[in-house]
């Protein structure tokens, strides 16, 4: 922030000929803070390492007096190689404007193309065509479950009744996941535009964005973006001169992971305890305030404008945004084509563990996902391949673990998470997670027997099969997947006497 202010001061001087603006995340967070220098078409990312804001501003002043910024790399800074795999292997279509535009300035977003697709869709006035495009694109929900988006839209559109609701799930709660935060902070208008197009397609008049309170910057930028979009007539009544009206409300959570589950989210929007309920009825039929409701997550909506802009062929299989963390040399947010191999992502792009230790596992899907062993790194990252490995694509959190990691500890970590976040409504999740964590702690304390290990496995299956909602059903996944791929870690912790049996 200080950096932005100082540079802006320099730029404001008459005749500087440059613009300085705050932008959203560029991606390579581990090299931050970052700024980019754009001269003509050439954009360079510069990582600030040991330079202070005032030093930088002074250097900027000097560089300006010399003329061009084309070759400028200030002292204490390093220019990032655009050909480095972390940057070059990405396909930034959803994140295209992140890091390019000022997310607090609608006109900047508009000049980069924001709301043009909404405009075109409204002009064409053919909701069925929109749904058809989404269906044929094969787009699947980016929030975790991977339900076909087009089918969901068609279902809501087909529901009787004039009143419908739209919800954007921005309750990004998986620990180690921050893709949606990146989108919301870097290019909130892409989400608003996607929501407006969706609302038009399914016939919804009112929408909610449910965002977790832990993201104050994203909340502030969303509020601003909504206000600006309303002012410019991209939200509200008779949008872009059409007969379509759509209003948006921001709802801020209060710290409850389970509210990412759609029925819990609905209850939370209604001002109740964020407790899931059995489905059916599905939200498409009985959602917010009992009305047919379309719920998609941030990244799914952000895919809509770009799908329209590129068209089916150029959009191709689409992309997935991941946040890369853990034992990696370069962490941050990346967007890659679906089907990119895990190895490409964690070894080539992220550079593997920093001190050349071997990778032991990659965790995807957070507390609802599982751990992929190093031996399966050549798996293409897509919904079905990951499911076959006992994990899920999830919302996009990807945590790399090196050979020093104990997978039982990882399983216990996630189980503690699920226990704390269980809403407490159904017995298997409320109490099963407590008992599963106890068994894992017993293992870690080297007090467990073979019988305890069997119990762990059996109870995991019961909690998976008997729980009411997705949180409970997937809470045992980190245990089951590590038992499947890293059983040796468990056996090594059994009582010495037991291990020899």
């Amino acid at each position: 922030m200080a950096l932005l202010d100082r540079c802006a001061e320099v730029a404001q001087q008459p005749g500087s000929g440059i613009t300085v603006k705050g932008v959203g995340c560029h991606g390579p967070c581990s090299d931050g803070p970052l700024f980019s220098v754009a001269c003509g078409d050439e954009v360079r990312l510069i990582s600030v390492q040991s330079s202070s804001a005032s030093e930088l501003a002074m250097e900027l002043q000097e560089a300006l007096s010399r003329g061009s910024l084309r070759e400028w790399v200030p002292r204490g800074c390093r220019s990032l190689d655009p050909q480095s795999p972390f940057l070059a292997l990405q396909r930034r279509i959803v994140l295209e404007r992140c890091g390019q535009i000022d997310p607090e300035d609608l006109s900047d977003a508009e000049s980069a193309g924001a709301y043009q697709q909404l405009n075109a869709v409204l002009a064409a006035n053919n909701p069925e065509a929109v749904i058809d495009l989404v269906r044929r694109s094969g787009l699947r929900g980016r929030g975790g479950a991977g339900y076909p988006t087009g089918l969901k839209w068609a279902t809501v559109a087909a529901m009787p009744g004039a009143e419908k609701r739209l919800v954007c799930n921005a309750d990004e709660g998986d620990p180690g996941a921050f893709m949606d935060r990146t989108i919301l902070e870097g290019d909130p208008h892409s989400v608003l535009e996607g929501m407006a197009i969706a609302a038009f397609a399914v016939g919804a008049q009112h929408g909610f964005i449910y965002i977790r309170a832990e993201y104050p910057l994203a909340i502030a930028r969303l509020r601003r973006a909504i206000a600006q979009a309303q002012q410019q007539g991209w939200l509200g009544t008779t949008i872009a001169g059409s007969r379509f009206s759509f209003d948006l409300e921001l709802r801020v959570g209060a710290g409850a992971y389970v509210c990412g589950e759609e029925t819990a989210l609905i209850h939370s929007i209604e001002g109740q305890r964020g407790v899931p309920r059995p489905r059916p009825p599905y939200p498409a039929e009985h959602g917010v305030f009992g009305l047919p409701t379309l719920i998609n997550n941030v990244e799914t909506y952000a895919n809509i404008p770009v799908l329209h802009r590129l068209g089916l062929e150029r959009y191709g299989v689409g992309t997935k945004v991941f946040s890369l963390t853990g034992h990696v040399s370069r962490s941050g947010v990346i967007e890659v084509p679906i089907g990119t191999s895990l190895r490409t992502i964690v070894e080539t792009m992220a550079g593997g563990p920093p001190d050349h230790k071997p990778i032991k596992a990659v965790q995807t899907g957070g507390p609802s996902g599982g751990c992929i062993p190093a031996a399966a790194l050549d798996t293409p990252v897509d919904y079905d391949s990951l499911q076959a490995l006992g994990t899920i694509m999830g919302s996009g959190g990807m945590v790399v673990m090196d050979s020093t990691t104990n997978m039982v500890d990882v399983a216990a970590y996630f189980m503690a998470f699920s226990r704390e976040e269980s809403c407490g409504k159904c017995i298997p999740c409320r109490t099963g997670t407590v008992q599963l964590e106890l068994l894992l702690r017993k293992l870690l304390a080297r007090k467990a027997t073979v019988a305890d290990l069997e119990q762990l496995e059996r109870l995991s299956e019961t909690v998976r099969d008997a729980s009411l909602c997705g949180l409970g059903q997937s809470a045992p996944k980190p245990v089951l997947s590590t038992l499947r791929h890293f059983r040796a870690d468990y056996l090594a912790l059994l009582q010495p006497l037991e291990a020899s049996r």
Partner: protein
Amino acid sequence: MPQDFEQLDPVLRRHQFRADALLEVLAAAQRSYGYLSAPLLRHVATSLRLPLSRVQGTASFYHLFRFTPPPRHQCLVCTGTACHVQGAGGLLQELKQHLNCPELDIGEVRCVGTCSGAPLVLVDGEIWNHQRAPALIEALQELLQ
């Protein structure tokens, strides 16, 4: 004597005293008054025409609502996955061991989504990246003085 909690009025009016605004109203109430006291919760319940147990049950469901006055300073250790694999658990333990002061609330926070700074802590709402126990304890002790 019933308190009037005037600061809440604009929020209540903006939401037209609708029951579904309970979370927004509670959040605003906590922002204005620091925590959700019993009189404040009663005021919210009456204003939104909700049963007391409904208000209490909802407020207590969410981690971010508190029912006691906040301490002067707060240090929340992020326990997200990235922070966990970089030693957040040990960090939390050390803090609890070495800093026992009623002025400082030591707790946990769910992933704040800036994992490149792992392990990180939130001190009075501000993110401190790449923390190690000795330096952090020193910095917090300084803060407390």
